[in-house]
């Protein structure tokens, strides 16, 4: 699992690539939470690009719910972008879009 970060004025983009399971989720948790430790971090949106996530199980859902809890406390909104049809199916099945919306 790798994460590539880019950003603009009020938004940070995190492009996840690889397989998101229990084994790799810890790295994603730590990497994303490190954004909150950065004092210069003043963005209001975090967009997670899932286009290069080739596999995901329910661990991904748990990881997202955990990030939602942490980031929303600091008034940062999280969005999901470009999931593959397979990953999108898991997101829809679990209802995650009700709290972490999908953006185009």
């Amino acid at each position: 699992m790798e994460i590539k970060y880019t950003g603009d004025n009020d938004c940070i983009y995190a492009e996840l690539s690889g397989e998101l399971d229990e084994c790799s989720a810890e790295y994603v948790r730590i990497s994303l939470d490190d954004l909150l430790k950065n004092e210069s971090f003043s963005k209001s949106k975090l967009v997670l690009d899932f286009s290069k996530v080739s596999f995901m199980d329910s661990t991904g859902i748990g990881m997202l719910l955990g990030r939602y809890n942490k980031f929303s406390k600091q008034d940062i909104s999280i969005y999901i972008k470009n999931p593959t049809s397979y990953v999108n199916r898991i997101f829809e099945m679990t209802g995650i879009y009700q709290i972490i919306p999908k953006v185009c």
Partner: protein
Amino acid sequence: MAFDNYFKLEFEAKKVNESFARNTVAMFCTVLKPTLSEINDIKTAVSEAVTNSIVHGYEDKGGKIVLEVGIENNVVDIKVIDNGIGISDIDMAIQPFFTTKTEEEHSGMGFTLMDSFMNTLEVKSNDSGEKGSGLIVHMQKVIRG
């Protein structure tokens, strides 16, 4: 059930083996010419069952997981067996969003995904387990290709 083809393997309950387990089952099934969607369904279901054994059954302390996979006609039959602490109330455990580890960011959706992605799902105690009651997750997928 007498299978046309079958394998059984035992591996250590380590997170690093989740990918090994699901990809091994996926490769074994390729003779049935499954669609990408069917392969992904199987990979996710195996990953959920194996993760459950590692994280819940053995509580991340390690142990042995047995994976048995058979093919009969166009049905893939998968058993994930552990000798971990087992589940005292299986009916409750398979409910969506049920988790005993709320502080650890588990979604509680594992059995829901297994049930959704596979054609059959049976969860029962492994009475032959050496410690605790263990768990057997038995699931089948019909491959339509």
